[in-house]
């Protein structure tokens, strides 16, 4: 029997018990929509977190440092800091690489900040104010709604080297407001104490309760002065045109730097953003859990529906076998019905997904995630790949669910099937 004939017969078969077919179809559609919406939600979360890491946390796409700096740098900064000459050569080398938008040196520092009466510890990133602004700006077409933190780097100014941005919690501990003066104290590279006046140019919310009373952004020159490390840096941050080029660019740069005599390590934004990785892993696990449950419900629905269809149509199966339909034809007939049912269910599910997604996105819902200090919008993307994967899995598993009763029916003796009441 030709496949077209088989599918036409399968389609007719679906019309026999419309109520049962509709219930099964809706189970598939709702299951598909539930998975697709959750996939779209996690897709939006991943996208938001990646933007937050790259632009919000100013990680850029790639971070270059001397090999071992991430593990030993604090113990032996002199050994792992890049010299002014190395910084210049590296910037020139990386800048020449295709797809690189920005290369900027940075220097991390920790110390004590004081308002004259009280003091507390801080962790600061020293960045070139202009480069930090470019790092912080989102790619074309994206808005602040897509990235979930505000670093306050806009308040840094090349012309005002003492102007810093403090996290809101840190400023609150010392009752510092925008425009107030304070003093920062840190060790120089040589181990001597060094203090400088600062001016609070801006405040920002890290979005994380664990860092909001700790972080600060400072002009790179201020940090270098505190550190007594003129022209030096501990890392170079690289911004690329596209996040998709991250891994390929890392490989090319590693080759290039090795050839130039540099022993460097290059880490990607997602390797540096533990939060992104943890959230990604957690949502992947939840997705897998939901996917398994929904798939089980779909399989049970299809198996039940097709199992009943096979029993009800046993005599017809006997007739078809008698007039020349082979066993595999019977199996094809019922698995074809199941496949059509799943395809139709998924099609309805796609429509449901788009409808519900539109409703959620225009409703402007926001919520405060655990351990966060600021609300984030609840938005749902379309994750086409995972929707396709879901549809394929449902079609495969649904077909297998129909194959079992169909095979049983096809193998029973024709005389028994014809005598079935």
């Amino acid at each position, binding site marked *: *029997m030709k496949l077209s004939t088989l599918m036409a017969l399968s389609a*007719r078969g679906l019309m*026999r018990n419309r109520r049962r077919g509709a219930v099964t179809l809706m189970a598939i559609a709702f299951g598909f929509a539930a998975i697709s919406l959750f996939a779209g939600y996690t897709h939006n979360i991943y996208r938001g977190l990646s933007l937050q890491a790259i632009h919000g946390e100013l990680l850029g796409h790639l971070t270059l440092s001397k090999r071992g700096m991430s593990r030993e740098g604090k113990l032996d900064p002199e050994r792992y800091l890049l010299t002014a000459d190395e910084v210049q050569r590296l910037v020139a080398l990386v800048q020449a690489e295709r797809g690189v938008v920005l290369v900027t040196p940075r220097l991390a520092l920790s110390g004590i900040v004081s308002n004259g009466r009280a003091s507390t510890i801080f962790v600061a990133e020293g960045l070139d104010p202009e480069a930090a602004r470019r790092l912080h700006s989102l790619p074309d077409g994206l808005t602040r709604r897509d990235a979930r933190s505000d670093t306050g780097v806009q308040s840094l100014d090349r012309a005002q080297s003492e102007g810093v941005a403090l996290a809101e919690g840190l400023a609150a501990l010392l009752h510092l407001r925008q425009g107030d003066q304070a003093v920062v104290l840190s060790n120089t590279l040589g181990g001597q104490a060094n203090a400088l006046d600062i001016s609070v140019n801006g405040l920002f919310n890290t979005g994380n309760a664990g860092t909001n009373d700790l972080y600060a952004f400072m002009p790179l020159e201020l940090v270098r002065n505190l550190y007594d490390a003129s022209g030096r840096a501990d890392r170079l941050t690289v911004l690329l045109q596209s996040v998709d080029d991250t891994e390929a660019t890392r490989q090319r740069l590693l080759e290039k730097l090795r050839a130039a005599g540099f022993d460097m390590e290059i880490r990607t934004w997602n390797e540096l953003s533990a939060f992104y990785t943890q959230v990604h892993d957690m949502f992947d696990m939840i997705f897998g859990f939901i996917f398994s449950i929904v798939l089980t419900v779909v399989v049970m629905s299809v198996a039940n529906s097709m199992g009943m269809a096979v029993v009800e149509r046993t*005599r017809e199966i006997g*007739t078809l076998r008698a*007039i*020349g339909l082979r*066993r595999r034809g019977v199996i094809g007939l019922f698995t074809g019905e199941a496949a059509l049912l799943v395809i139709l269910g998924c099609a309805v599910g796609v429509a449901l997904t788009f409808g519900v997604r539109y409703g959620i996105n225009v409703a402007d819902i926001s919520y405060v995630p655990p351990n966060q200090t600021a609300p984030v919008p609840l938005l749902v993307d379309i994750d086409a790949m995972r929707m396709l994967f879901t549809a394929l899995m449902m079609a495969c598993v649904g077909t297998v669910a129909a194959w079992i009763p169909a095979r049983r029916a096809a193998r029973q003796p024709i*005389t028994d099937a014809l005598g079935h009441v």
Partner: protein
Amino acid sequence: MTQTCLANTPLMRLVAVTRRFQLGETVVDALAGVSLDIQVGEFLAVWGPSGSGKSTLMNVLGLIDSPSSGEIWFDGAHVGHLSDDALTGFRAQRIGFVFQSFNLVPVLSAVENVALPLQIQGMPKPQALARAQDCLAEVGLETFAAFRPDRLSGGQRQRVAIARALSGSPSLVIADEPTANLDSENSRMVINLMRQMNQNHGVTFVFTTHDPRLLEHVDRKVLLRDGRIESDEVLQ
């Protein structure tokens, strides 16, 4: 016991066929050593009381059941050893079936039901439907081609079933109690129609019945009792 064998190579030959069923701890011999030759173009009725083995014999003749022992020859070829797929293909090309309960596919129209065996054999739909339309015309139902079975009377459904059985131009049509679900008028009409097809196309018909009045129309009648052929009469 009277047994008459016609000359020439038979279309179908059964040699000492038995069919044994295990019902719990009881063994039932539905067919107990049946030997039978069926000639090309015959119009043959198998009759007998309930439980005599008529339906079992029809199933064996239609190659939808295998004998417990004995040989089955079709057109000079031994078909007892064929695989399920081969037997299915053989049935599709050589044997048509008419069932007591019509057994039409309810979601297909009359013409689609008649075209179904042809499509199963791989014939393209337009040709199959054209051929099915001709078959329906032969049984007088061309105007009911688009009707689904639930809109047809019992007699009409059985005529559609006969058209379906003939659509593949088979050598043999097996009809197990084709009139059992019909009133006497429709029963006579169906038997006359089968007779007409037999005479017009030379198709061999073997059918079972428990209605003695229908036996007046046949060439040959085989009386079955307790799984054995009790008489085999060729009528003038």
